[in-house]
């Protein structure tokens, strides 16, 4: 017992989190160990991690401000015309939450699964496959927040936030990250080689471009609009746009439930797949 105690004492993140969540009663507490491992691993590479946050900012200045100058105003939530940059900013906030979560839950998880053999080592400890999935998704959500928090700060500095409801945009962004990360980890367990990641690009680029990020759904013909409604990013964009611009409604709860369900399904699949791949 004493040996366990000396091993645990330096892990400040873990002790903080376990105190925060009520210690040992937490079901997925082993997942926090994996998150702590990643936090320690990326401590020396924080600049690489953080630099990913600038991409949506470049888009904000280029498409939002530059192209926005050619567009003027568009019809925002509630049928109210808003300047284009105000319209596009919450969409790009959703994109930053998506980017952070997707990069980590696909490329990095595949590397740990097939190349680093990290999970082989992890599963040799009391940590189970479901907790590996939960830990990876949790880490990807943290990384999504690492991208979306600075973006939200820049939005506030540029005066693109018009409502106190915007405070709820942060949990909203975390929800997008959760849904994307869970589906990302689940899909990654089916990947055979790096070549398969062409399919990730094949899905993520249209998701980014066509999910109502840059223009309202009314631009599309009706048939396409119905398809786009199923995009998780579209649902996330609507949630964040309505909150940031101050038009909350009960329908946002349905959209949030859709994302939550998607995330939970991904989590369940990911845990089972990791068990099947590695616990023979």
């Amino acid at each position: 017992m004493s040996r366990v105690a000396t091993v645990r004492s330096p892990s400040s993140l873990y002790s903080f989190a376990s105190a925060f969540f009520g210690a040992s009663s937490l079901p997925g507490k082993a997942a926090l160990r994996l998150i702590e491992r990643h936090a320690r691993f990326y401590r020396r590479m924080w600049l690489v991690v953080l630099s990913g946050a600038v991409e949506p900012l470049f888009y904000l200045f280029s498409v939002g401000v530059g192209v926005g100058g050619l567009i003027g105003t568009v019809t925002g939530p509630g049928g109210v015309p808003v300047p284009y940059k105000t319209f596009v900013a919450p969409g790009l906030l959703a994109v930053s939450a998506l980017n952070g979560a997707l990069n980590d839950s696909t490329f990095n998880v595949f590397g740990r699964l097939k190349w680093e053999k990290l999970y082989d080592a992890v599963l040799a400890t009391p940590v189970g496959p479901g907790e590996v999935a939960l830990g990876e998704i949790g880490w990807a959500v943290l990384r999504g927040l690492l991208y979306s928090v600075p973006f939200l700060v820049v939005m506030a500095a540029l005066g693109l936030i018009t409502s106190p409801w915007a405070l709820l945009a942060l949990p909203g962004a975390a929800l997008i990250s959760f849904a994307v990360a869970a589906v990302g980890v689940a899909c990654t367990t089916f990947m055979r080689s790096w070549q398969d990641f062409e399919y990730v690009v094949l899905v993520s680029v249209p998701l980014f471009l066509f999910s109502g990020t840059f223009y309202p759904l009314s631009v599309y013909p009706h048939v396409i609009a119905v398809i786009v409604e199923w995009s998780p990013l579209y649902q996330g964009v609507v949630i964040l746009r309505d909150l940031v611009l101050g038009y909350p409604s009960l329908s946002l709860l349905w959209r949030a439930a859709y994302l939550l369900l998607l995330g939970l399904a991904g989590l369940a699949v990911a845990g089972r797949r990791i068990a099947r791949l590695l616990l023979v």
Partner: protein
Amino acid sequence: MTSTHSLANGTASDGPGPAVTVRPLPAVPGGWELAVRAFRCWLVMYRRTWRSSVWSSVLGPLFYLGAMGYGLGSLVDRNGTAALGGVPYVVFVAPAVLVVQAMNTAISNAMFPVFGGIHWNKIYVAARATMLRPADIYRGHLLFIALRIAMNSACFVVIMAAFGLIKSVWAVALLPASVLLGFAFAAPVAAWAVTLRTQTPMNYVVRFGSIPLMLFSGTFFPVSSLPGWLRPLAYATPLWHGVALCRALSTGTVDAGAAAIHVGYLVVMAAIGLWWGSRTYYRRLYV
């Protein structure tokens, strides 16, 4: 044949059997001949992996054309097209998307496979054990990258034509212009990538190089919409020269002087890259 001796002077005179004529060793080919052999090696590899690259290289630009050109364009065109030179937004954006995909194809193919040639699949290390010189390995790889740029650009030019986004016969020059721009990026980027010891700087090039270039070089909105102090910077970028050249070709607003400046800029950039790459490849692969 029995004689396996190599003889300097013509015929084998000792021992039984017919005389064997021994030809002198062929001279080491000069110029780009060895580079073509390195290029053929890449072709053999590509024959086995081309399927996965087709999707992203053809569909990616098409997605951008649809979302930016048609989707965003429907909002832009409501306000008139005077700022765009009197053409619909999609016609304005299409040549820019062509040039951006040429740049992205060039940069991604000149970074990761070059780094991998030394660190991952070590194809450069293998090539070094043959008669290929570092400059041949470099040029052979550049030829293959140029081929990839040409393939992707040709696909996109055909798409542009099919959507009626080409307004002038000058558009026949879109393909060579796009390949020139890609080559102007590929040569210096490969020259730099071969010197790397870790892969992280390549991520920075994408994040702080190709993405800002793609977004601010007169691609999705005219440079005149940028703040005054940023405009000279945008005009100095190679991507802007490529965009301006291809936009002039596809809309039929070619000005001979301006086109000469654009082409000259890109040719000089490619030449400097070629000179630099011969040096960096030599240093990296002969040590």
